[in-house]
């Protein structure tokens, strides 16, 4: 790397090149700011995409012992497969600890694009029922802005990203800027109609960051199926081939890969961040890069870890942590409650051939809404994701020719699985484990989180409501699930540097600037005040654009 890359002072240092970091780099660089984008992992090339490779070409057909050895945590993620496991972090190099009775599954990637390469792509707006939830039920805190403040940024993000979906005019799930929706199966059409007729609930096709028509130079989805292995046509949104590419194209952004950020450097006299120190992932050399503003987009737990590791004399408990809440209020959606069944009267045979729709259905939250009244056993709510369609029936009984035939005859399944709000709780937190370091000598996290009674009550209710809706739709063989995954399994971790107006209660101000250090921003999921029940990435991206526009404004007024 030429020396001048590290010798100049950038306007902004963006840490992390995933969904939020890509947006920060694009927005700031296109506004004319000089940006350096630091990514802990390597570059990614479309040549390593494997979405069209059949499983029989894999040595172990996705039962690779190598994943078991190097990625015992990452393999818990549905998207970590024999095809792509090298995109996920090596757990041996990236340790963290948890109390024995409070397990947490931290699933992450270090590569340009981060988790946007493998994300589930589901994209839902939050509503004022979410942003003002505390005012309605008295638990926790409101967000420091309302839906109307964020709506223009949702528009910007959706128009660029491309979200397929259908407008529903539902009070809990604001409509957005949608590309044409994907189509529903017969079973889903039936569920949608009966659930509306009997319960007044809204079941809609999934809103997903996949383009269904040519969009910003990207070709529409060709329905091959497994997006998490990459996409030759860039039809699902991932940052490397969209926002990061745009940032680099502007001529104002320098991307440094393999830069594992250790801490933020402070100019203590001025109480300003002056840059960051990183360890080169390959050479293990320590380097410093300087900037007038630092924007952390490393993912909630990772950005929090950087701040905790940036403690100074002035901020002994972690940088920008005069409030004492940094690392606390960790949330991750509770997921698992629901039901599945079969539509035995729908005679559609399964097909091994595409199209494979890379999207499901979404059943909008109906508990504790402005029109539903209060539920007696829990606050907040959950939405369902799922789907219905014919599948091959490997579980068929029997043997021989009859079994082969039964497999192909298939089974028409239907399922609903809940994602529920995780309440903000001070006692769910992460801190630095003083006895544990990663492969670069950087102190690692100790994560302590458990879902509580409210989450458990919600999942019990989800099992019952899913079953009654499937039954109303005519499903047979219904099985109910009320248990739920350990924290981290939803891969929606948020909240560890919460935002709000009061510097004594919140780490970040309403524009994602640290209350304590105004040229230090965190725009990833760390800033969340409450988790809502919708998948968070779309909202994080909108918040990032809003925060960056505010920062650009400050630069224009020479206020950084």
């Amino acid at each position: 790397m030429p020396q001048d890359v590290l010798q100049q002072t950038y306007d902004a240092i963006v840490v992390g090149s995933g969904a939020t970091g890509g947006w920060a780099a694009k927005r700031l660089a296109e506004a004319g700011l000089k940006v350096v984008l630091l990514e802990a992992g390597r570059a990614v090339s479309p040549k390593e995409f494997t979405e069209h490779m059949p499983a029989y070409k894999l040595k172990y057909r996705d039962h690779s012992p190598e994943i078991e050895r190097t990625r015992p945590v990452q393999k818990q993620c549905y998207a970590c497969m024999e095809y792509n496991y090298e995109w996920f972090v090596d757990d041996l190099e990236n340790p963290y600890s948890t109390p024995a009775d409070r397990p947490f599954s931290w699933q992450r990637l270090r590569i340009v694009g981060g988790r946007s390469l493998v994300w589930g792509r589901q994209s839902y707006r939050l509503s004022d029922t979410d942003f003002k939830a505390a005012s309605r039920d008295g638990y926790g805190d409101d967000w420091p802005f309302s839906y109307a403040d964020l709506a223009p940024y949702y528009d910007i993000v959706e128009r660029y990203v491309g979200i397929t979906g259908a407008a529903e005019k539902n009070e809990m799930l604001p409509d957005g800027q949608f590309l044409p929706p994907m189509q529903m199966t017969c079973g889903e059409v039936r569920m949608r109609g009966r659930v509306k007729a009997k319960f007044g609930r809204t079941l809609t096709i999934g809103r997903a960051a996949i383009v269904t028509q040519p969009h910003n130079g990207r070709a529409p989805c060709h329905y091959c199926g497994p997006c998490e292995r990459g996409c030759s046509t860039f039809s699902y949104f991932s940052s490397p081939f969209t926002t990061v590419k745009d940032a680099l194209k502007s001529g104002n952004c320098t991307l440094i890969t393999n830069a594992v950020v250790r801490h933020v450097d402070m100019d203590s006299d001025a109480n300003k961040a002056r840059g960051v120190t990183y360890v080169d992932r390959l050479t293990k050399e320590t380097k410093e890069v300087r900037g007038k503003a630092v924007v952390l987009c490393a993912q909630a737990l990772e950005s929090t870890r950087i701040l905790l590791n940036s403690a100074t004399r002035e901020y002994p408990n972690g940088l920008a942590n005069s409030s004492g809440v940094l690392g606390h209020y960790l949330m991750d959606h509770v997921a698992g409650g629901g039901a599945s069944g079969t539509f035995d009267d729908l005679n559609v045979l399964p097909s091994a051939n595409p199209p494979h729709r890379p999207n499901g259905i979404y059943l909008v939250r109906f508990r504790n809404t402005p029109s539903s009244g209060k539920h007696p056993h829990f606050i907040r709510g959950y939405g369902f994701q799922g789907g219905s369609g014919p599948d091959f029936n490997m579980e068929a009984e029997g043997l021989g020719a009859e079994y082969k035939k039964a497999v192909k005859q298939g089974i028409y399944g239907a399922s609903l699985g809940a994602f529920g709000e995780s309440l903000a709780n001070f006692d769910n937190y992460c801190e630095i484990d003083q006895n544990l370091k990663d492969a670069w000598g950087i102190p690692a996290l100790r994560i302590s989180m458990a879902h509580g009674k409210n989450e458990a009550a919600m999942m019990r209710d989800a099992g019952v409501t899913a079953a009654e809706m499937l039954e109303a739709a005519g499903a047979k063989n219904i099985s109910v699930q009320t248990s739920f995954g350990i924290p981290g399994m939803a891969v929606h971790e948020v909240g560890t540097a919460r935002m709000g107006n009061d510097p004594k209660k919140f780490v970040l101000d309403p524009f994602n600037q640290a209350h304590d250090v105004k040229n230090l921003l965190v725009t990833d999921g760390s800033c969340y005040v409450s988790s809502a029940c919708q998948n968070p990435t779309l909202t994080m991206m909108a918040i990032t654009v809003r925060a960056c526009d505010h920062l650009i404004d400050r630069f224009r007024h020479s206020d950084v």
Partner: protein
Amino acid sequence: MRNHGSEVSLSAQATQSSAVISRRDLIRAALLAGTSAALGPAFSLAQTAAFELTPAQRGEDDSKQLADPNWKPAFLSEDQNETLIALSDMIIPATDTPGAKEALVNRYLDLVLTGESAESQQNFLASLNYIDSESQRLFGKEFRSLTAEDQDDLLRPLAYPQRPSFWLNKDLPDPGVEHFGRLKSMIAVAYYTSEIGERELGWDGSFTHGPFQGCEHPTTTHK
């Protein structure tokens, strides 16, 4: 479910015929040509060490590994291997399409079992041994030496278990049914993830047939 991308378990998107492979590669090359060049060095593989790519990401094709004429079992004994071949052939025989034997289900399972935990290995062997011990008990010889009729007689009750009866107090799981179920599900995975298995399910070798059309019934059909 098949039409949820993230849950597709038997990914059936490419093809074997070399003529079609080249067509697919041409499509892929065309898809990537414009973008790759425009993306520049930040999106190049040049800086990436081979060990930081999975074999699949390096473009390795391991589909022919099991057909090695010098193949020997690594985990199974020769006898166990023969038993597994006989069993898999009863569960998924050749019909108008090839069966488990042709799909080399035994070889795939031997490979996977080699890398499994000691506990999984022991569970598998316990189930395989159960089949042989039943064979000895009922017919006085090992399963692989039975006639097809006797093999079928042995397996059929395990493959079509009776529903538990309250009156007979048969609510305990039948160990034989469990052993058979374990072996059958592993054989089924091995078969249906093979190329033969994918073809058996009707896969035509392509990875795209245009957009998903969904339900095309009149709106009143599913009221």
